């Protein structure tokens, strides 16, 4: 409520400042025009509104209230004002804006909009698609409920050009987004994925951004500093699920209590942590001699999870040199370095005692000495796959080969060095080499054509090491959870590395534009993309796409135009599928 009052005061203050400014300039020439509309709408609806009204509140019959809209545009020698609004008959269909400036010194842009988003409600029936063998059961505790999120967003950008320091500018931005409603939240209700439950989760989220910016220009050098503070809060409670009791699927004895973290209790799930972000960005742009420009920026950001104090720190340095010394030739050299550090966290696993069976009275790790199975201390430090250093160096050149023909060459080298996550045995690095060749030509006054070829080679793309295909010693004992092979040992014996990321990409894109008449043109595009990965040790992966499209535009009259588009996409993927089977 306090924020609403502040926002209202802010708008009134701006209009007040504007009015005073306009009054002061009354004697000068000014011009205002506007429009106020009032009406009604009527809907006749058949079937579901989930898709036809995905972002619009559609109800049968007349709307709740009148549809209202207005706009006002005014300008004079020393000011301009543009404001408008739309009320679509109910509170979830609103949009307002205000843009204005006084003497080009004080500039304000404000907008507010409110709408809803209908979400899918998955009946979970696809989980019954696999027949035979152990089955996955499912329960939807919210059958028939429509899930929906109500959004409202307001944004203000205030800029002041400092009159006593030409080229200097400060600005203050504020953005608030509120999301309220319900969405579907799923969880596994057993010790594995064979019982899925679903219910509605209340959403009550708010994101606020506060941004301050300062920019100053000293002749050939422009400097800019940007600070952002973002707060994200989820104020709704997480849903509660009654988790099943873990027991032997055959005899019903609670002999696996030592192997589960939780069971037979009510616990929260789908929890969304509140967080905050601070970032500092410094930019410098220099116009150097010999038609050369130089750009340099440094970004430091910190995102913190308010629930557990874990944070992600990021530093990014970006540099670019552009040169146009040789007529017809434009050269760019780019450099980017990113360092991302995501906090480690120690996972202290609950180690309950078994209440029945051969290990009764003991935890799974330090088990009954009479039992012979292999175990380990389940506590571990979770290290993040996000933590990494990324270095990118790029070069591109565009040269006007003939009067109406341009050729381009792009090359980029990138290295991703992850702190912990291995993409090959003992190797955390991914390297990419990308080369792009292009030709653009205006064949005559009516025809334009463009063709681009791209080749990318990737060493060690994102892989899931030893993800599938266990090869177990045939003499190993199966069947007994207390004497035989443990699941973790079977996972340790997996040998197949899987990936759906390519090691090589070939891509051709063409674009053809034909201006048949001044009021009639045809655009034709075609792209072919081939991706393959034959470097994994067990199987190959390949994906090939063809995407032709046509677009015809015709304007028989000044204010009448027709546009017809057709797009076709054929994509074929060859991939090995490993289906883990597990029935508890």
């Amino acid at each position: 409520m306090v924020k609403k009052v502040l926002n209202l005061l802010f708008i009134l203050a701006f209009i007040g400042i504007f009015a005073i400014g306009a009054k002061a300039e009354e004697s000068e020439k000014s011009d205002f025009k506007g429009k106020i509309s009032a009406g009604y709408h009527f809907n006749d609806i058949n079937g579901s509104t989930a898709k036809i009204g995905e972002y619009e509140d559609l109800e049968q019959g007349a709307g709740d209230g009148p549809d209202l809209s207005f706009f006002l545009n005014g300008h004079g020698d020393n000011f301009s004002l543009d404001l408008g609004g739309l009320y679509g008959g109910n509170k979830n269909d609103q949009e307002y804006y205000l843009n204005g400036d006084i003497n080009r010194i004080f500039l304000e842009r404000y907008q507010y909009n409110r709408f809803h988003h209908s979400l899918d409600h998955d009946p979970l029936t696809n989980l019954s698609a696999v027949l035979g063998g152990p089955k996955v059961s499912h329960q939807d505790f919210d059958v028939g409920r429509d899930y929906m999120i109500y959004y409202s967003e307001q944004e203000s950008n205030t800029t002041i050009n400092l009159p006593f320091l030409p080229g200097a500018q400060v600005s203050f931005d504020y953005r608030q987004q509120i999301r309220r409603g319900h969405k579907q939240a799923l969880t596994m209700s057993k010790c594995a994925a064979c019982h899925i439950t679903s219910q509605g989760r209340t959403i009550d989220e708010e994101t606020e951004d506060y941004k301050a910016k300062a920019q100053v220009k000293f002749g050939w050098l422009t400097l800019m500093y940007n600070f952002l503070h973002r707060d994200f809060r989820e104020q709704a409670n997480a849903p509660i699920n009654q988790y099943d009791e873990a027991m032997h699927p055959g005899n019903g004895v609670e002999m696996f209590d030592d192997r589960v973290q939780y069971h037979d209790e009510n616990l929260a799930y789908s929890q969304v942590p509140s967080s905050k972000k601070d970032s500092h960005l410094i930019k410098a742009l220099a116009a150097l001699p010999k038609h050369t420009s130089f750009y340099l920026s440094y970004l430091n950001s910190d995102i913190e999870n308010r629930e557990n104090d874990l944070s992600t720190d990021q530093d990014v340095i970006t540099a670019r040199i552009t040169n146009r010394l040789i007529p017809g030739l434009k050269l760019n050299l780019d450099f980017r370095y990113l360092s991302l550090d995501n906090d480690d966290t120690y996972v202290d696993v609950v180690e309950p005692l078994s209440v029945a069976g051969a290990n009764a009275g003991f935890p799974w790790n330090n088990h009954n000495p009479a039992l012979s199975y292999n175990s380990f201390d389940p506590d571990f430090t979770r290290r993040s796959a996000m933590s990494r250093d990324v270095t990118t160096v790029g070069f591109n050149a565009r040269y006007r080969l003939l009067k109406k023909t341009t050729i381009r060459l792009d090359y980029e080298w990138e290295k991703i060095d992850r702190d912990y996550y291995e993409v090959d045995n003992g190797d955390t690095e991914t390297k990419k080499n990308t080369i792009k060749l292009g030709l653009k030509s205006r064949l005559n006054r009516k025809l334009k054509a463009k063709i681009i070829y791209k080749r990318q080679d990737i060493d060690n793309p994102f892989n899931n090491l030893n993800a599938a295909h266990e090869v177990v010693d045939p003499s190993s004992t199966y069947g007994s959870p207390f004497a035989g092979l443990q699941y973790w040992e079977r996972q340790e014996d997996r040998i197949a590395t899987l990936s759906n990321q390519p090691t090589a990409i070939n891509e051709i894109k063409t674009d053809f534009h034909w201006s048949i008449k001044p009021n009639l043109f045809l655009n034709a595009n075609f792209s072919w993309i081939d991706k393959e990965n034959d470097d994994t040790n067990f199987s190959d992966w390949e994906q090939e796409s063809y995407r032709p499209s046509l677009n015809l535009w015709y304007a028989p009259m000044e204010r009448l135009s027709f546009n017809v588009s057709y797009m076709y996409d054929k994509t074929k993927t060859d991939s090995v599928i490993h289906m883990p089977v597990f029935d508890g």
Partner: protein
Amino acid sequence: MVNEKFNVTFANTYTSSKADLGDINFSNTTFSPNYDFDLSEIDQYSDLNIKQIDLSAGADYRINDNFALNLGFTYRRYADDDPYVEDGTGEAYITNFSISYLF
């Protein structure tokens, strides 16, 4: 624009989307009797067969320098012929009118 006082607009978008997953077949594979799954129905949960149309027409009539009448009509249809998550098939006829004061 028909004349200085009367203005009409039309807009139409039609989209047809189709996709499907072929039968899942395993070659050279023998399942344990305990895991002899029947996967023949999986592909039915991946079909995509959606047609969407959005047709709108509007007319503005300028009564005089200060007043105008506006009439709009929209027909919107979403047809999912192979729903497997939620059947969002529906259509709406939306009619709206308004009177505007211009200054």
